[in-house]
């Protein structure tokens, strides 16, 4: 359980209700997030397969958003443990796009450099690097770079698996590249500019 920090006390006691954080997250989320509609019923946390490893359940996280607790929300491991199974999304009586809100929170945490464990952000970034280079995912490059960086001790145990994947032709050692990489690069560059101005 999170501590009653100064920030939390301040947020509760001395501030007028400040919904700017809630609105910011809502606006940065794809589609219409319905985040403002959360009634704190807790169906999301009760449906979540990884809730037991989360520092805050989604319900609690949304309450913290409403309370304007920016740092604590962005430091929470909750969005990083979301497996995008959409159980909470179909069960939510208010139709909050919970999984998409989690994506937004991840991206905000990356931009603010406020994550506590770098494994997941690095994995996402490595994956994206592969796409931006080749236009396709490249599992061998991704896996080797990621495991060397974050799970070097897991590597010996994984050798048989990696070996099997390669010998059974399920993991190429050479990446595939799309034909019009220049076109994709131009699109992504423009999209990144738009991201900054939005």
């Amino acid at each position, binding site marked *: 359980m999170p501590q009653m920090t100064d920030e939390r006390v301040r947020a509760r006691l001395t501030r007028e209700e400040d919904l700017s954080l809630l609105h910011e997250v809502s606006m940065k989320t794809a589609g219409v997030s319905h985040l403002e509609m959360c009634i704190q019923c807790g169906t999301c946390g009760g449906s979540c397969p990884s809730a037991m490893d989360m520092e805050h359940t989604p319900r609690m996280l949304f309450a913290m958003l409403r309370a304007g607790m920016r740092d604590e929300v962005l430091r929470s491991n909750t969005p990083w443990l979301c*497996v995008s199974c959409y159980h909470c999304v179909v069960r939510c009586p208010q139709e909050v796009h919970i999984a998409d809100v989690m994506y937004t929170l991840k*991206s905000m945490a990356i931009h603010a450099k406020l994550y506590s464990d770098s494994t997941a952000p690095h994995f996402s970034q490595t994956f994206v690097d592969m796409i931006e280079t080749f236009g*396709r995912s490249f599992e061998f490059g991704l896996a080797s770079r990621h495991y060397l960086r974050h799970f070097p001790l897991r590597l010996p145990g994984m050798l048989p698996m990696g070996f099997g994947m390669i010998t*059974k032709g399920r993991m190429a050692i050479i990446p595939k590249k799309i034909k019009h990489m220049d076109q994709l690069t*131009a699109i992504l560059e423009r*999209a990144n500019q738009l991201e900054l101005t939005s």
Partner: protein
Amino acid sequence: MNKYILYPGCSMESSGKAYGESINMILEPLDIQFDEIDDWNCCGATEYLGINLIPAYSLIARNLALASKQMNPDDGTGGTRTVVAPCSACYLNLAKADYYMQERPSLGVKVNEALEAGGLSYIPGTLDVRHLIDVLVHDVGVDAIRNAVVRPLTGLRVAPYMGCMLPRPDYQHRWTDHEHPTELDDLLRALGADVIDYPLTTECCGGHMTQIGPETAFELIMRLVEDADERGAHLMATVCPMCQMNIDAYQNEMNHFFGTHYHMPILFFTQLMGLAFGKKPGEVGIGTELVSARNALAHIGVEVPVTQEPAAPKKKNEGLPMPRRWTKQEGKEAVK
């Protein structure tokens, strides 16, 4: 003849190679024609969305823009404005981009502005994005599938595993239920298989957690494998390369983590279709799974040729004693 535009997805050429091969084998018996999107790119999986919004959606939309160039509305059957994605994650990303660009028009405007830099554009709603099993069950039909069966899978006990990203969030209301859809059961039954009750059918396989938080993933994989095993399944059937990868390739590591000895093969449903349509095991990519399905398939008299198993590096058993999860039997005995 059912015609579709195909978005194969990256895993179809690598970890899910058996899926791609078996799909090619069922097209002709079911009279389906696929037109692959020219120069398609990765959909970004579940990773890009968590980094930057507009680039992530632009990446997905490039595929939609390319696909819309290939659609042929004059065809009369309407089939060619449908994009089929066999991978659940790709399917969801394509469907999601199409849906959200409509739900929030400002997203659509920005994505199109980015696409313009590459000389492309996409009007959301132009295409119909659907998953492979959706078109097989709803367009081709269970009856047509049953008619194509020449070697029924009688006696093969299959756990139908739908995974999560296919029946949920279901923007277009295509499934019988979000948590217990029966489409895969119907299809497998049409093949003659003995489909077991599998309440965990839409529970998560762990997704990318095998890469970033293995303990969480192993717990999820364990639940699925343990339940299928207890219910007497010979194997699991899946519709998604990521589910297949997690349950197949990480089962060994999961067993090691918990000290269990499960052996639960997981095949793509199209591999089972291929077998039922009389194809040889090798033609539908059987033998590429890491948890071998050889014994399971022996129940239906399918002999999988023994391939030379690569000599995996042996691990010496002289580490420190590690805590081990009890098996059900040991647990019962301890209580006594």
